[in-house]
């Protein structure tokens, strides 16, 4: 701030900072800035484990985990574990999302559907899905069945809640406008209700992705015969901390990957929200 000379036209006024953007010396690109946090975490890990304070028996060194990872990739063990778990998530997620979506649409677009379905879903919402594990084991055995159902259940609920809410929040005035344009019921749903509820559906999908990885970990403890859960169990029984940490890191990476996928979907499908013109 500079003080204006007394008697000048700016006397008594404060000078605002202008041209600040161009004066910035180094502009760090945003993706790089966003990466700085995770990188700092790895650096911290490396620093802590390379000092003498932390022994490899309490937390493995970063290099050790990497070596284990590389050798498990060489043997093909890691890929098959990721595939076995990923397959469960994909199947469970597909079933859960489809069911949640269908039920939400049924409850959302008709009064009768709402009366029949929504109160029932409120009851189901109150049940922690992991408490169903014993029941699922008795009904479906200990192999893929209960794992996939558990994952599907945990995916379906956020989809239902958000999509149903989204449908109910579609602007009534737009539906009215659609009616005056001569749209029939099906066209109203296709052109107004569905796109109007899409942002909420995608929010639900975010929560679903968060839930399914959690459900996967629980599901794979039922009877770890394959997948990342088996690696985790093996690591625990043989005190292989490097394997345990490796699996945890892989869970994190899969989670990040799924968030990136939802973000991509949002960017694609919700273009109109950003108000960006043309392609």
């Amino acid at each position, binding site marked *: 701030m500079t003080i204006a000379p007394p008697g000048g036209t700016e006397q008594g006024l404060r000078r605002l900072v202008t041209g600040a953007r161009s004066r910035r010396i180094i502009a760090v690109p945003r993706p790089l800035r966003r990466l700085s946090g995770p990188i700092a975490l790895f650096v911290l890990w490396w620093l802590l484990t390379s000092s003498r304070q932390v022994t490899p028996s309490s937390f493995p060194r970063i290099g050790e985990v990497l070596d284990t990872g590389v050798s498990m990739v060489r043997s093909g063990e890691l890929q098959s574990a990721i595939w076995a778990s990923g397959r469960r998530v994909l199947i469970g997620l597909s079933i859960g999302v489809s069911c949640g979506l269908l039920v939400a649409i049924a409850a959302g677009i008709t009064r009768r559907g709402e009366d029949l379905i929504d109160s029932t879903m409120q009851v189901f919402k109150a049940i922690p899905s992991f408490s169903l594990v014993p029941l699922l084991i008795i009904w479906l055995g200990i192999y893929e069945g209960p794992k996939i159902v558990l994952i599907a259940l945990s995916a379906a609920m956020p989809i239902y809640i958000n999509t149903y809410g989204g449908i109910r929040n579609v602007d009534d*005035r737009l539906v009215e406008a659609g009616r*005056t344009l*001569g*749209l029939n019921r099906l*066209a109203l749903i296709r052109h107004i209700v569905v*796109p109007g509820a*899409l942002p909420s559906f995608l929010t639900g999908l975010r929560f679903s992705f968060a839930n399914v990885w959690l459900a996967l970990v629980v599901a794979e403890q039922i009877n770890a015969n394959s997948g990342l859960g088996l690696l985790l169990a093996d690591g625990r029984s043989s005190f292989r901390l490097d394997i345990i940490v490796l699996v945890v890191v892989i869970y994190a990476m899969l989670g990040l990957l799924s968030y990136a996928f939802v973000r991509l979907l949002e960017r694609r499908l919700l273009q*109109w929200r950003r108000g960006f*013109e*043309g392609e």
Partner: protein
Amino acid sequence: MTRDSDPRPADERGPNALVLADVRRRFDGRAVLDGLDLVVPHGQLVALLGQSGCGKSTLLRIIADLDREAEGDVFVPERRAVVFQDPRLMPWKRVSDNVSLGVRGDDVGARVREVLADVQMTAHARAWPATLSGGEAQRVSLARALIRRPDLLLLDEPFGALDALTRIKMRALLAVMCAKYRPTVLFVTHDVEEALIFADRVIVLDAGRFTFDEPVALDAPRRRASAEFQTMSERVLAALGVVDSS
């Protein structure tokens, strides 16, 4: 309530675009519309004036077939269109897709281009509604109504939310559009000058009844400053129960 649409081609149609007979609407036992009769011949530009809460929007909603709980008889043509005070564009559809929404036929693309040119929005055909100004959005809303070639165009305070300068431009555009597309118009407004500049006939709705219904016998071009305009304006204001001492 009975409601007849006119499926006949234009040369076979009757003389009128809108007929109301003893239309009543109650909300919780309170009569908002209390026995309305109205006959509007094809091509007439009717301004419907009234104070806030007089029931003019209720009447428009009944005619637009958005309120089926009224009593009495309403007769409207098959092709109707509505422009609301807010543009009500679908935010997830580009301008051209908003205009073509619900329009059938194989020349839809050409018709969209024509009507967007008419409202001077050609350059924004691919734009998202969120990027438009209020006036631009309302022009698209007008295009969306006109592409249907409506026999009856219902306007519910279409310029009410616009700034004064945009409103002047929009009035002129509406006059040009009506000259080209020749719809019958029911124009709900609370602006007496707007009504007198635009309409062939002015109706005042007060406490659920029509209390004033006269043709606007002013020569074109209508000038606000003329003595006839002032006289008519004062009479309409009196019917609205407003005394303008300015």
